[in-house]
Structures are given as structure tokens and as C-alpha cells.
């Protein structure tokens, strides 16, 4: 155990150092850009895993939280002239506030009904963004958002070196925070509730409060990621709420492996680079997505626990469960008859 654990610690240290060294060897701005985007999606996917994987909440509003972060940061930075760094934090807080609002109805709901409410909430957010076009720019989007700054440093003329390190720093911080959360007593309690709601409550775990906390925390990190996203790209536009964004990030969570945090981050890198690698092939726009789709299925076929199960000290939750309990678990057990 200890040896394995040490091995893992070393591996993580090695990965962090590699991450820090990448820009020294990769001078190409395109590749640096891909890393930055993969880091952002890594944050979104890993924080989604907190609610989806650990807490077992079928939260389909995560991309809406990301969008809330994007617009909150973009608007405060551009319209109110708030310092962009501060605005990024506001993005995280705004996303958390949105999550708290969603939590009100869904802490009472079971299983798949959560999908419906969270999905409906996403659509409401999108509708608000589009309809308030005098503020948000509507379908046209919000352009010329000011970017982050440091005294004496120009982020726009350094071939994305600065953005790379900021994104990497945010990713490492997010991952560390999320790992700490899931290993804490709080993490234990949300996993407990995921495994068995009623039993969790019978052991004194306040279900509504823990779910609220999980949603708020998960949204905070994705909101921060959204904040960075808008400051980096300098535009906020409603396409981010598209079904395709949600399915991209969802694929990162599931291909990476739920309940692992590292898995989704890893998958974000793999999928981003793979998809972009295929984009280089001429006349292959459709084929690119077909190949990515096939890869997803193949990964899930051979690693149903996701890529995370290839990591050392894998997260080997045992599998064999029977068909019998399947639907009840999904729909949420409402059957307490004797």
C-alpha cells in the first residue's frame, strides 16, 4: 500500500514538473493553446466529477455553471471594469450562487428527475443570456473582454507562455482542492449518500446540505475555469451552452473515469489533442468526429472504469452488480414497502 502510494506521489510530482517544463520545449503557440484549452476543460470535467461521480447527482447543469462563470467574469471585467483577476474569482462565486439556486429544487429529487431540472435550468440560463442582449450581447456574444495582466508583463505578446502557466496553475490548484475535498470527511459523506441515500440519512448525514455543498464546490471550480476561459479568449458567446460542449466534457468525465478527479483531467488532454490531431487531415471534418466517437466506445469497452483505471493505485471500485437492482438504483429507490 505504502509503496504504491509513494509511487503515485512520485508520478504526480513528475507530472507537475513535466507540466511546468512543457512550454520550454513547446514553443509553438498552437500547441500551447491546445494545452491551455485542455487544462480549462480538464478543470471543468474534474469538477463535474465531484457531483456526477462522487456525489452521484445527475447534474446536467454543469456546463451552465461554466457559462455563468464565463458571463459573470466577462461582464464584470468589461462592463463594470473590475480587475480581471478579481473578475475570475467573481465568476467562480457566481457559478456557486447559480448552483445554490439549482440545489434548492434538486436536493429533494431522486435520480433521473435531477437530469430534468438541471437540464431545464441550463436552458433557462441560456434564454436569459440570449434575451438580455443589451447587456450580454445576446447571440452576438460579448467581445473585447479585457484580459488578465501582471505588472510589466504583456500576456498578448509572449506566445501564450503566461496563459499557459496561469491555466496550469489553476488546473493544479483545482485538482489539489478537489482531491482534498473527496478525501475529506465531506467526500466520504457524499460517496456514502451516492451508495445509499436512506442509509446515509439514517447515519446522520444531512443529505440536502451535503448535496448543496457538493454542487456549490463543483460549480466554483468550473466557474473559475469559465472566468479564465473568457479572459483568455476575450469573448463570451452563447455557443458554449450547446449540447456539443456538454457532450464533449461529459465524454472527458466518463472516458477519464468517474470518481477519480485525475481521470477526467487526463482524458481532457487525450481527447483535445486527439481531436485536434485529426483536424489536420484535410477533408476529414466528419471523419474526425466519427473516429473520436469510436475511440470513446472502445475505451469504455476495455476500461469501463475509464482511463483512470490505467493509473497506478487505480480506483478499483468493484463492479459485479446485478441487473436486478439496476433500475431501482437509477430511478432512485422510492420503494420502502415491506
Amino acid at each position, binding site marked *: 500500500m505504502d509503496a504504491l502510494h509513494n509511487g503515485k506521489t512520485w508520478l504526480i510530482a513528475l507530472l507537475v514538473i513535466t507540466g511546468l517544463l512543457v512550454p520550454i520545449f513547446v514553443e509553438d503557440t498552437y500547441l500551447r493553446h491546445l494545452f491551455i484549452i485542455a487544462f480549462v476543460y480538464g478543470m471543468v470535467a474534474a469538477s463535474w466529477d465531484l457531483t456526477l461521480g462522487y456525489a452521484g447527482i445527475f447534474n446536467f447543469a454543469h456546463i451552465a455553471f461554466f457559462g455563468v462563470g464565463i458571463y459573470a467574469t466577462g461582464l464584470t471585467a468589461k462592463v463594470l471594469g473590475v480587475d480581471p483577476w478579481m473578475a475570475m474569482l467573481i465568476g467562480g462565486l457566481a457559478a456557486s450562487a447559480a448552483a445554490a439556486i439549482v440545489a434548492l429544487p434538486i436536493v429533494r429529487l431522486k435520480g433521473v428527475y435531477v437530469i430534468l431540472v438541471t437540464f431545464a435550468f441550463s436552458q433557462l440560463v441560456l434564454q436569459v443570456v440570449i434575451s438580455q442582449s443589451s447587456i450580454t450581447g445576446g447571440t452576438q456574444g460579448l467581445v473585447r473582454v479585457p484580459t488578465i495582466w501582471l505588472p510589466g508583463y504583456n500576456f498578448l505578446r509572449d506566445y501564450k507562455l503566461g496563459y499557459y502557466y496561469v491555466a496550469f496553475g489553476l488546473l493544479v490548484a483545482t485538482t489539489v482542492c478537489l482531491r482534498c475535498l473527496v478525501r475529506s470527511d465531506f467526500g*466520504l459523506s457524499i460517496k*456514502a449518500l451516492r451508495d445509499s441515500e436512506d442509509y446515509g440519512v439514517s*447515519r*446522520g448525514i444531512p443529505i440536502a446540505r451535503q448535496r448543496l455543498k457538493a454542487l456549490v464546490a463543483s460549480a466554483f471550480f468550473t466557474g473559475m475555469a469559465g472566468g479564465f476561459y473568457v479572459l483568455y479568449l476575450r469573448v463570451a458567446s452563447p455557443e458554449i451552452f450547446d449540447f456539443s460542449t456538454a457532450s464533449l466534457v461529459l465524454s472527458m468525465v466518463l472516458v477519464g473515469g468517474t470518481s477519480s478527479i485525475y481521470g477526467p483531467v487526463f482524458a481532457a488532454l487525450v481527447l483535445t489533442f486527439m481531436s485536434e490531431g485529426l483536424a489536420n487531415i484535410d477533408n476529414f471534418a466528419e471523419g474526425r468526429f466519427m473516429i473520436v466517437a469510436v475511440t470513446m466506445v472502445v475505451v469504455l469497452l476495455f476500461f469501463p472504469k475509464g482511463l483512470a483505471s490505467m493509473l497506478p493505485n487505480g480506483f478499483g471500485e468493484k463492479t459485479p452488480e446485478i441487473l436486478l437492482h439496476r433500475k431501482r438504483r437509477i430511478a432512485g429507490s422510492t420503494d420502502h414497502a*415491506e
Partner: protein
Amino acid sequence: MLETNDNQPLLEVRQVSRRFGALVAVDRVSFSIQKGEIFGIAGPNGSGKSTLFNIITGIPFPPSAGEVFLAGQPIHKLRPHQISRAGVLRTFQKDAEFATLSALENVYASAVYCGQMGSNEARVAAQQALDDVSLAAERRTKAASDLSVFERKQLMIASAIAARPKVLLLDEPAAGLTRPETSDLADLIYTVHGRGITIVLIEHVLPLLLKVSEHLMVLNHGAVIASGKPEEVVRNPVVVAAYLGKREAGL
């Protein structure tokens, strides 16, 4: 909490009912349990036994009407997790443990959240509780779903006593056990009782119920049809009719 005087019942249930539409699953049931008692509840299938546990603990729903007091304090208005924290813990008839967590984590979580202990204290309490139910040390790091049926019963009881409850509601703990295991379970119940925990037991396996209960209550169609000393209750013609009638219908 106020100090309890010795004559006050530890758990008192007054006129609780639970309806589902037109169906009355529990019909104005009242009883009270003294501290230190082992209180048995019997009744044919569908007589409302588990529903009674559900509405006492609020998991997953409170009573439609009626009141529940713990040491003189009303608890039926509390949230379910608060009822647990107040000291009324239950087990479930079906497997309900935290399947992906280890046995130790299962018990630890209960000590932290229900017992509201700090993590060091909770860790000690968890090991102690597992010792009490004599779950083998090497099994404690296994995921709960990897444990045997009996080990899961041990685990469920351990996770309850780690939280130092006042009352433990056991919902058909012998379901799915072999005869020798059932007798081990009886010993386990005595052990828990020996820790000063009041026990309410629903059981289908009548010999076990009769063996351990000091007081027996029988439900039929959601209502109490008899209550008293076990050996007297089982001779009550109403009870016999309820069970026999059931059996005949079943045949």
C-alpha cells in the same frame, strides 16, 4: 436535552398514522418503550412494521399524523438526519450499506456524522464498534459490497452503535441468514443491549423474536392487535387468527 426521570419512557409513539392515498399503512399506533428494553414487533407481511420504522425515523417519510417523543422531546418534526443524531438509529431490511466504501469507512462515517465526533475520536469509536460486533480485522478494509451477508449485518449494527444511539431499530436483521448465523445474531443483539442501548426489533423469524424480546407488540393491517409479554401475546387468539388467517390465505 432535559434529564430524563426513570419513569418516563425513552421512546414514546402516540397515535401515528401513515396513509398512501386511500391505503392506511399504519393506523393510529401508540406504544412506549422503557430505557434498556428489548421491544419486539411482529406481524404478518404487509402489516405495516417497516412503515412504522420509516415514520419513526422519518426515512424516507414522516407520519401523516401522530407524534413521536424521545426522552420526552418531540422528534417527529425533526429532519431525518436530526432524528438519527438525536439517538434513534435504524437498520434496513435490504442491504443498504455504503457499498463502495470500506467497512471501516462505513462505520467511521456514522461516528462522524451521526455521533458528531472529531476524526480521531471517530476512528477509535469505529474500531471499537467493529470489535464489539467482532468483525475480523482483515475484513475491515474490504469494500462493504465484498463482505458476506452476515458480515454486512455486523457492519450495519457496528455503524449504528459507533454513533452511540439511545435506541436502535433493527428491521428484520435475520433475513437471509442461516440458522447458526441467526443464533450468532441473537448474541450480537445481546452484546449491543449490554452496551446500554435500547432495542426495537422487527422480526419475521419468530423464535428469535421470542427469544430476545422482553415485550412484544403485534401489528395487523397497520393497527396494534396485541401487546404484552411475549409468551402471553403468542397465545392471544386474535394474534393466532391473524397469523393463521394469513397462512390459510397463502395456501
